[in-house]
């Protein structure tokens, strides 16, 4: 600890802080975290440390109960489901702690999977047959705790693992009792409307309001230990309240939001400076509440090494600014490299630039350049179909089926439950889909493969009616959120039976997102959906031959935003979002995976092996450049941003120029 700390926190204020000592933790009879179980007093925080270790396990502080009641009085649906899942299926719940200190905690999933595997192995006798092996039916993570659901007959075996070592760390295994655990785990049976609960909740809400700066999107949680309001609440009088306070605060924050998008947008910056934190155990839920944080101030705490922050190893994937000044870890020779490795978007570390914008851009580049959608429609058949389909799927699936599907149309869906995500937002469960999912990696038995494929209007209707209601974004209003590609496809079955060689149709691939409305909450998900449509007797003379849907966690739409040549910062506004989809066919993407060189000889001139489409584009770029005096790069950006429509690009250029939004280096030297 820094020597200055004592003097800064002079007088009675040294009670506070939301810190927790490092090392293994134990849980006392109350289920309260006992901070001083190991290494007590080693850090010498004076009488406070000693006082803790001798703390009698008396009645829990009223504040904690109040928090728990406050939260349970406003239980969110997802929690209700979790609890009911545990009870309804007659499973016992067991909590496992201590694994966050293990080596496995640095795994991408925080060690979740290997811990579950470890536990399953240990609760099985070595000679047990594969068919009768005990399994952990369900598990979830809350803060530092893994909560598993198991058959009642396995309870003793798993409790026996208490104290076992997992990847170098001793585990604490206990029967899980929601009442005794983190306040984030509410007990729905609890009467949450008591006045003291409401009072505590109101006080914490007021504290959050006081510390939230809406314009700056900043939540300032620094120096909580010296907050007079928190001290007045007795929040730091015992380690028990201390450890539960932060998760409770996060929960109350989350209660302000029903919509995940608003929640994500509300805060970009959080400060946890001056909190005497030696590791992040107590505040680890920050990453669940603010997964998309861009700026994080952890300065003037007591983090000694990377291990103190390990639980955030795979969190905060969008972090750009991180301040750890005033922590011993900052002096570690590996500090900068480790942080760069952990946070791929990190630009400023301890107020120093550690990654340039160019380096970030280079990192994003893929070996296969991202081109605008390939869209080879025929008489706008695919365009009209896609528009009609997603509008109909949201509003009237039955009519939609009658319009485009017949007794030979096929549909199936598969859930990719482990897909990469755009944000670290928690993904809603897949309960509504998983029993219908035909992921052939997992569905191996023929009868299941057969029963999960749906042929004909009626079978598909029955399935669709059982799926949650959806809302897809409007294609015209939000074209950038969609990627729609299409090309002709021969060899489809002829519904009239006349052609033995089959008929021609279109293969349409759609990637996008939708909102799902279920039980009062809105969930955001991404999907990939491929259709094959051919001539038929449906609306517009077509029928759906095949419809195959993949569902996955929300993954954003950045991945298909067209890559632009690297340009100096700041990014110009010359490129409006991706052109409207479906775009004008006729200009095809280049047929090679090599981007055109920046200052090229032979630019715009046909050459052997050079595709016509590329020559065409290069010529358009030169025209644009000649008319605007912009560089080739900017001309190309303006064109590609306007669907290669010269008129639209020129209009866009005039607007931006008029508004003075084009940087000087957008123009050819000597023309400004």
């Amino acid at each position, binding site marked *: 600890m820094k020597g200055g700390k004592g003097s800064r926190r002079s007088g009675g204020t040294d009670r506070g802080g939301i810190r927790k000592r490092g090392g293994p933790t134990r849980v006392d009879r109350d289920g309260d975290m006992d901070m001083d179980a190991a290494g007590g007093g080693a850090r010498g925080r004076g009488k406070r440390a000693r006082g803790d270790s001798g703390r009698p396990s008396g009645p829990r502080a009223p504040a904690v109960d109040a928090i728990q009641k406050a939260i349970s009085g406003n239980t969110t649906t997802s929690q209700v489901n979790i609890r009911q899942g545990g009870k309804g299926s007659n499973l016992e719940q067991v909590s496992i702690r201590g694994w966050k200190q293990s080596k496995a905690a640095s795994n991408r999933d925080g060690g979740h999977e290997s811990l579950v595997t470890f536990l399953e192995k240990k609760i099985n006798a070595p000679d047990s047959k594969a068919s009768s092996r005990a399994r952990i039916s369900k598990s979830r993570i809350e803060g530092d705790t893994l909560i598993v659901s198991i058959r009642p007959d396995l309870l003793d075996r798993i409790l026996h693992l208490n104290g076992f070592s997992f990847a170098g760390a001793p585990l604490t295994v206990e029967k899980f009792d929601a009442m005794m655990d983190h306040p984030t785990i509410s007990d729905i049976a609890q009467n949450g409307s008591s006045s003291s609960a409401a009072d505590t909740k109101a006080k914490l809400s007021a504290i959050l309001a006081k510390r939230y700066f809406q314009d700056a999107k900043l939540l300032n949680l620094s120096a909580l230990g010296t907050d007079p309001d928190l001290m007045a609440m007795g929040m730091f009088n015992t380690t028990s309240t201390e450890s539960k306070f932060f998760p409770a605060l996060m929960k109350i924050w989350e209660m302000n939001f029903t919509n995940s998008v608003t929640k994500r947008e509300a805060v970009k910056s959080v400060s946890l400076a001056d909190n005497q934190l030696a590791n992040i155990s107590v505040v680890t839920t920050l990453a669940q509440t603010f997964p998309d944080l861009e700026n994080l101030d952890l300065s003037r705490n007591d983090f000694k090494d990377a291990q103190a922050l390990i639980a955030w190893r795979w969190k905060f994937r969008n972090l750009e600014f991180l301040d750890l000044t005033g922590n011993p870890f900052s002096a570690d020779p590996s500090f900068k490299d480790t942080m760069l*490795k952990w946070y791929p978007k990190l630009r400023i570390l301890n107020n120093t630039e550690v990654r340039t914008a160019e380096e970030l851009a280079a990192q994003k580049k893929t070996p296969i350049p991202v*081109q605008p959608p390939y869209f080879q429609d025929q008489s706008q058949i695919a365009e009209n179909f896609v528009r009609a389909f997603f509008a109909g799927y949201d509003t009237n699936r039955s009519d939609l089926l009658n319009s485009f599907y017949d007794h030979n149309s096929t549909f199936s869906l*598969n859930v*990719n439950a482990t897909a990469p995500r755009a944000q670290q937002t928690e993904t809603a469960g897949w309960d509504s889909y998983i029993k219908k999912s035909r992921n052939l990696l997992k569905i191996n038995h*023929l009868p299941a*493969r057969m029963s999960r494929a749906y042929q004909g209007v009626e079978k598909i209707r029955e399935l669709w009616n059982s799926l949650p209601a959806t809302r897809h974004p409007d294609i015209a209003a939000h074209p950038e959120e969609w990627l729609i590609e299409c090309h002709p496809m021969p060899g489809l079955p002829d519904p009239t039976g006349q052609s033995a060689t089959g008929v021609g149709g279109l293969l349409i691939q759609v*990637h996008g997102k939708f909102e799902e409305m279920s039980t009062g909450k809105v969930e955001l998900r991404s999907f990939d959906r491929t259709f094959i449509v051919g001539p038929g007797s449906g609306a517009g003379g077509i029928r759906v031959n095949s419809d195959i849907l*993949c569902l996955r966690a929300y993954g954003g739409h950045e991945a298909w935003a067209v890559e632009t040549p690297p340009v100096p910062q700041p990014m110009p506004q010359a490129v409006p979002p991706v052109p409207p989809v479906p775009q004008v066919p006729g200009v095809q993407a280049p*047929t090679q995976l090599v981007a055109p060189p920046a200052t090229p000889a032979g630019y715009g001139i046909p050459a052997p092996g050079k595709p016509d489409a590329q020559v065409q584009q290069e010529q358009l770029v030169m025209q644009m450049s000649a008319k605007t005096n912009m560089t080739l790069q900017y001309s190309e950006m303006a064109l590609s941003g306007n669907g290669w429509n010269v008129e639209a690009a020129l209009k866009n250029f005039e607007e931006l120029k008029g508004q003075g939004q084009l940087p000087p280096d957008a123009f050819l030297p000597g023309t400004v």
Partner: protein
Amino acid sequence: MGPPSDDVLTKVSTDAATEFVQSFYPALQKNRAAIASFYSQPTSTILFNGNVVADGNAVQDIFVNQMPPTHYEVQSFDCQIINQAYPTPTPTGTKAPNETTVKDMSILVIVSGYVRFGESRDMPQRGFSETFVLVPNPAAEGGKGKQVKEWLIYTQNFRLVV
């Protein structure tokens, strides 16, 4: 002989898709010289992130010459039969009706997973979605040994989606 039953059709198509997924992605990682052998001749449209690629040989060229070490992880896939009576081309034209078998079908395959470009495990996992149409390999008939693939790529569309 009557039309094949649903269980035969499901078995043939899902086995084909499984075999394909389990051999194609490993080849992209470790056996790039064999990539072209996965494609029919001729192929229809082949797309990678919106870039048109001419045929299987061109795909192989790109992977051999331009792609860094690449790790694919298939996390989910599914398939459907597009046409139960696919007109498999043969050197002598289309088969007569009495020459066709249950395997004369075309299959739609959709794959979801992630890809990591570069050798380091710290490189980001990029989500991809890929759609294939598989058709029978005319050369596979008559049991010419295991080397000949039964199913070939007719169309392919790869897209990074995360």
